[in-house]
C-alpha cells in the first residue's frame, strides 16, 4: 500500500451559472520518499489538485467525489479538527510566491514557533531551538538574527528558504510544492530547487512537485503526471515519458522546449490555447488542438470528438489517447494475422 493514494478525485467550483468541473477522475499514488511531478499549463488543474489534497481549496471550490487515502486514513470528509493535525505536520506545503506567503506583520520566529506549537506540546524556548536548527538546514546566514526579523527584511530567495524550513519543521512525510521557484529570479531558482531536492533525499521526504517546467521535473522527480483541462492525460516514470512521450499533448510540450527548436527558426508552439473549464470540447478535451485526429490515410478518428479516452499502457507509462490506443490495436492485429 502506498503512503498516499488518490482515487478518482473530482473537484468542482460552485458558480452561480452552475458547477465548473476543475478536476475529473484524477488518480495517482505516492510512495514513502518518492518524488512525483505534476506538469501542465496554467489552468490545467495542477494547483487545484495540490490544494484539494489537504482540503484547502478556496470557496466556491469543493471536493465532489473520489478518495484520498493517506497512511491508511481517508482524508475526504475528515473533520477539520483532525485534518488540521495532518496539515503542516505530516503533509506540509510550499507556496508559489514567497513574497505573499509569509504574514507581513508577524516575525519569522513567531510564524515558525506557532506551527510547532500547533502540533506539539512544546515550550517556546524549545520551539525556537528547533526553528533555529531548521533555518540552519536551509543554509540561511545568521539564522539567530532572522528569527526576530519580519518578512519584508528578507529577499525573495531567503523567504522561500524560510518557507522550506517551515515545511520541514515537523519532519513531514510529504511536502507539496506548488511552483516553488517560478516567482524567483532565474539565478536563484536552481539553488532553491537543489536545496529542496537535497533535503527531501536526506530526510526521505516524499515530494509532490507542481510545475510547468519539464526541465525541473526531469531533474527532480522519479514519476510524473501530465494534466490537461482537469484530467490526467499521461503518467509514468519521468525518464520514460521525457524520452518517449505518447500523448500528442505531451509531445507538444516537449517540442515547445526551446532546446528542441532548430537554431534560427521559430519555437514550436502547440496551436491554440487551453479551453476554459466551463466550456470544454466534447470527447477528448485536447482534440481541437491535436494534430492526430485524422488517421494517416486521411479518415477522421471520430472517437476523439465523441468519447473521453481511457488510459492505455505502453511500457510503464499510461496515456489517455484514442490515437495511441488505435496504433496499439493495429500493431497487435497484424501480428496475430501473420501468426495464423
Amino acid at each position: 500500500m502506498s503512503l498516499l493514494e488518490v482515487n478518482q478525485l473530482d473537484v468542482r467550483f460552485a458558480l452561480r451559472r452552475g458547477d465548473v468541473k476543475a478536476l475529473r477522475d484524477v488518480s495517482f499514488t505516492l510512495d514513502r520518499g518518492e518524488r512525483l511531478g505534476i506538469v501542465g499549463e496554467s489552468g490545467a488543474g495542477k494547483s487545484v489538485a495540490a490544494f484539494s489534497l489537504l482540503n484547502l481549496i478556496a470557496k466556491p471550490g469543493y471536493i465532489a467525489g473520489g478518495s484520498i487515502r493517506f497512511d491508511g486514513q481517508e482524508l475526504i470528509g475528515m473533520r477539520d479538527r483532525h485534518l488540521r493535525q495532518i496539515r503542516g505536520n505530516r503533509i506540509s506545503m510550499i507556496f508559489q510566491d514567497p513574497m505573499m506567503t509569509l504574514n507581513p506583520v508577524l516575525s519569522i520566529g513567531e510564524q515558525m514557533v506557532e506551527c510547532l506549537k500547533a502540533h506539539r506540546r512544546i515550550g517556546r524556548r524549545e520551539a525556537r531551538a528547533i526553528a533555529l536548527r531548521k533555518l540552519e538546514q536551509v543554509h540561511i546566514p545568521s539564522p539567530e538574527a532572522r528569527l526576530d526579523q519580519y518578512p519584508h527584511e528578507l529577499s525573495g530567495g531567503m523567504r522561500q528558504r524560510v518557507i522550506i524550513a517551515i515545511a520541514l519543521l515537523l519532519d513531514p512525510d510529504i511536502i507539496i510544492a506548488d511552483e516553488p521557484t517560478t516567482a524567483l529570479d532565474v539565478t536563484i531558482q536552481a539553488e532553491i530547487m537543489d536545496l529542496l531536492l537535497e533535503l527531501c533525499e536526506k530526510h526521505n521526504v516524499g515530494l509532490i512537485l507542481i510545475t510547468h517546467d519539464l526541465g525541473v521535473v526531469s531533474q527532480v522527480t522519479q514519476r510524473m503526471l501530465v494534466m490537461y483541462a482537469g484530467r490526467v492525460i499521461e503518467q509514468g516514470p519521468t525518464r520514460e515519458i521525457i524520452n518517449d512521450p505518447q500523448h500528442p499533448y505531451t509531445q507538444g510540450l516537449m517540442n515547445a522546449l526551446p532546446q528542441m527548436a532548430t537554431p534560427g527558426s521559430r519555437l514550436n508552439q502547440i496551436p491554440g490555447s487551453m479551453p476554459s473549464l466551463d466550456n470544454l470540447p466534447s470527447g477528448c478535451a485536447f482534440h481541437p488542438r491535436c494534430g492526430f485526429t485524422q488517421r494517416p490515410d486521411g479518415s477522421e478518428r471520430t472517437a476523439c470528438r465523441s468519447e473521453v479516452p481511457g488510459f492505455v499502457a505502453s511500457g510503464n507509462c499510461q496515456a489517455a489517447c484514442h490515437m495511441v490506443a488505435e496504433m496499439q490495436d493495429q500493431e497487435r492485429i497484424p501480428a496475430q494475422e501473420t501468426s495464423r
Partner: protein
Amino acid sequence: MIAFLIKRLFHALLVMFVISLIAFSIQNNLGDPIQQMVGQSVPESEREILREELGLNDPFLVQYLRFARNAVQLDFGYSYIFNEPTTDVVLRHLPATLELVAATTLLIVLLSVPIGVYSAIKPRAWLSRFFMGASIVGISIPVFLTAIVLIQLFSIGVSWSPFPGETGWGSWLNGLVSTEGGMPAYGRGDPVHVVGTWYTNFASTEGLVYLVLPAISLASIMLPLFIRLIRAEMLEVLQSEYVKFARAKGISLRRIYFLHALKNTMLPVITVGGVQIGTLVAYTILTETVFQWPGMGLMFLNAINRSDIPLIITYLMIVGLIFVITNTLVDLIYGLVNPTVKLTGKPA
C-alpha cells in the same frame, strides 16, 4: 524613531501654520475690534488713533507675527458673548465634548470589531446580512435625525402604539435616575466635579444615563462605516496567500482569524480611524446642538450665530491642535503595529 518624530512634528507644525493663517485672515477680515470696544458714537478720528495704537495699521506680516506670538501663549483675546478670555471659555467646554467623544469611541470600538469580523468570517449568515443591511441604512441617516428619533422614542414617546405614551421606551431607565417622564435627553444633568473646570459624567449612574442618547446618536454615523470597512478589509485579508499558508501549516482557525487576519485588517482601519476622529468632532456640533450638550460644538455654533469672531478662532485653533495631536498619535500606533514602518531605527 527620532527621525520619524521629527518628520511628524514638522508636518504637525505645517498644519498648525496653515490653520493659523486661516484663523488670522478670519480675524483680520471679519473681526473689527474697534467696533466691539467702542460704540457707534465715537468719531472716526478717534477710532483711527485707536486703530494705530492697537497696531491694526501695521503691515500684514507684522500683524500675523503678533497673532502667532499670542497664539503660542493660547491668547486669542476676549469672547464677546462671555466677556472673558476665549481660551478659558473653550477649555471650560472641552471636557463635555471629550467625554462624549470618548464614550462614542468606546461604543464604536467595542461593537465594530466583533461585528465586522463576524460578518467577514461568515459572510452568508443571516446575521451578517442583517448587519450589512443595517449599516447601509445607518450610513444614510443623518446624525441629527438619529438624535431626534432617539429623543422621540426614548424621551418623549408617541401617544399611539407601539410607543409608550408620555415617557417613551426609556421609562425603564428612569428608575435608575429617579426622574419623572422620559429618558433625559437635554444637557449633561448634574456631572461630578473632578478638578478645575473639569466635571465628569462617568462618575455617576445618573451622569452615564445622560450620556446614553448623545453617545448612541454620535456613534450611529461612524459605526456602520467602521463595520463595513473592517468587513471589507478582513474579507480581502482572508483571501490572501499568507492566510492560506497559515491554514496549510495546521494553525487553528481562531488563531488565524484573530491574530493573522485581524492584525493585518487593523492597519488600514487605524489609518482611517485617525481621519475619522476629525469627522467625529465635526459631528459633535450636530449632536450637541440637538441634545443641548454643553460642549465645544454647541459653544461653536452659538459663537457662529452671534459672530463671536475671537471665540470662533480659538475653537478652530484648539480643534486643529486636537486633530494634529490625535493624527500624530494614530501614526505612532500604526508604526508600532506595522513592522514595515521603520519606527524603531533598528537596522534592517
